[in-house]
């Protein structure tokens, strides 16, 4: 059977190639060239710049290659990277970003899984409505949703006013400009990215598997842990990574909801670039971030491939 599916895949492509379809190479070239120029090459530029020296100039760095009497003199400057290692600010920022992203992703998983499960198990009509409700906030501005939380969390904000009114507290709680607000903001804005892949996975779950498990004597909770959860692992990993990876580099949420001591690497990069105008160090920060991201991205790709094979 595997031979047959192998044959079926991409048969139009083989046909087009055989027909000498002249547009074929062109059709491939357009997206490939675009992504090469505007996605891959920029990383090389960043890598190059991370080895350059900062300067007060326009643009604010020294060229890597200098031509001197027909000889190219390449001055590699690893100083930007040793600088990152020397200053605890950067190491701490990386560690704190990983921690915040990880906790947020875990929290989003705990909140998102039951919702995704509930939607996937709903009758089809209701399912579409609920799914729409999950996606709807995503269509409205990300920035405005973070801003909405500012109004919720500030000391004279909605939550504090409510709690003071009920008499539960008599001093406003400090929630804005804390790490707690950052967790909340990330979970809130990324929740749809957790729910959607989980839903896509759970909706494929065959009812008869659950019935078979029940028929063989497993109680619902046991069925969940032995059947549903293992089968949904690709969705769990995909959802987790879709929250975890972008959250590492998050800038808007810590900037608007976090305090001045909320260290996140996206914020550090932003400040290096916009405030300090140190492009080479910003580039080095970006390269280091990419290195950290490679492993989770690979895990994500693997989960995706597994999901497609299902």
């Amino acid at each position, binding site marked *: *059977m595997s*031979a047959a599916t*192998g*044959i079926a895949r991409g*048969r139009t492509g083989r*046909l087009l190639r*055989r*027909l000498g379809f002249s547009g074929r190479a062109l059709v491939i070239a357009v997206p490939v060239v675009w992504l090469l120029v505007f996605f891959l090459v920029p990383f090389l530029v960043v890598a190059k710049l991370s080895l350059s020296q900062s300067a007060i100039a326009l643009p604010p760095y020294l060229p890597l290659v200098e031509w001197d009497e027909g000889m190219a003199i390449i001055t590699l400057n690893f100083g930007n990277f040793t600088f990152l290692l020397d200053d605890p600010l950067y190491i701490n920022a990386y560690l704190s970003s990983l921690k915040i992203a990880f906790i947020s992703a875990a929290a989003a998983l705990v909140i998102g899984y039951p919702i995704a499960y509930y939607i996937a198990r709903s009758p089809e009509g209701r399912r579409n409505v609920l799914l729409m409700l999950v996606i709807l906030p995503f269509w409205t501005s990300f920035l405005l949703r973070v801003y909405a939380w500012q109004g919720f969390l500030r000391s004279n904000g909605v939550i504090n006013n409510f709690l003071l009114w009920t008499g539960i507290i008599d001093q406003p709680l400090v929630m804005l400009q804390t790490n707690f607000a950052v967790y909340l903001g990330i979970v809130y804005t990324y929740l749809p990215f957790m729910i959607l892949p989980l839903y896509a996975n759970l909706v494929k779950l065959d009812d008869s598997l659950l019935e078979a498990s029940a028929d063989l004597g497993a109680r619902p909770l046991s069925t969940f842990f032995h059947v549903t959860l293992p089968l949904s692992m690709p969705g769990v990993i995909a959802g987790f990574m879709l929250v975890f990876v972008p959250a590492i580099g998050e800038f808007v949420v810590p900037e608007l909801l976090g305090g001045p001591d909320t260290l996140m690497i996206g914020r550090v990069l932003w400040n290096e670039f916009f405030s300090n105008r140190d492009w080479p160090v910003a580039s080095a920060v970006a390269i280091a971030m990419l290195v950290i991201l490679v492993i989770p991205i690979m895990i994500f790709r693997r989960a995706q491939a597994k999901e497609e094979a299902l």
Partner: protein
Amino acid sequence: MTDTMTVTGAAALAAAARPWTTGTERPFVRIDRITKKFGDFTAVDQVSLDIFKGELFCLLGGSGCGKSTLLRMLAGFETPTSGKIEIDGQDMAGIPPYDRPTNMMFQSYALFPHMTVEKNVAYGLLRDGVHKSVVRDRVAEMLKMVQLHTLAGRKPHQLSGGQRQRVALARSLVKQPKLLLLDEPLGALDKKLREETQFELVKIQETLGVTFIVVTHDQEEAMTLSTRIGVMNAGRIIQVGEPPQVYEYPNSRFVADFVGTVNLFEGRVIEDEPDFIRLAVQDLPVTGEGSGAASAGGAGQIYVGHGVSCTIDQPLWYAVRPEKMRLSRHASDAPNSYPVWVEDVAYMGNLSVYRLKLPGGRYLLASKANLSRYEEDTISWGEHAWVSWDDTAGVVLTQ
């Protein structure tokens, strides 16, 4: 054609309708040593086949036997790794699907979901630049033929399975292809509808005179529809013949087993005479009668009432179909008769199938037509009985 006219009446007619028997007519489709490989996997292996004008030829085989790949090479969706395909004298090499004189009816029907029935059927004609008014007439005519003219404005998803099947047929026939390729045309229909549609399909084919090549895995369908059947296995054509030929004279164990149900015995030749042979079969019990019991070496024997080109001690196979067997309470005087124990009887309505156990433990299947509504004293399960068959009932197979 003119040659055969000189032959007398009925024979001439038969020969004209069965050009493959004469060997004088030029085949319409010529498949010459076609091989198709996908990487290391050989899907179609050195297949040669001649198909004549007006035939309804069935390619029969299990899944993965290469029948669909062969069909797709005829349509132009796959290129043969080696070999040649000729349709109506024209070499098909390098001719893309859209320039071939063939049309295909897909297993999934492949109806364009965004077009109405009418637009689906008109699509092919419009691609050929046929004038709009002509298209309209031809489409209307075609829809009338498949009795869908009242549903012309519907979209495919508003149709039943049977209706979709007819749209797909109309769409593939409207361009009047020289050759129509049908991939499991009835596969998606339920049994009742399938049986009705089989006859409709044959009627349409005869009316239009188009050559059909049908791919199917259903041997009953192949038997009902086709002028000839090509049985395929593992990329090769095993046997080509008219339905009775394939059923009654299978050329191999594979064909005997794939087409219909069969009881297969492995034996060796112990007597080889011009007008009969005798086989020693380990699975069968010794019945004491017949000559050469000694040479059978304690094995049972099968008597075959015609000569076979073979040698003494050559291993052979013998195939006999369940309906060729008789069941009785007492030993019969038929050449092949053995005691059995009736283990089970499956009542199927039109016939009953008996599962019989030989003394050596081997099982046989025998069937009996239920000719009357009530029979007294039928043999039932748990009884001892005798099974027997004539010396012409079975086929000797060498491969």
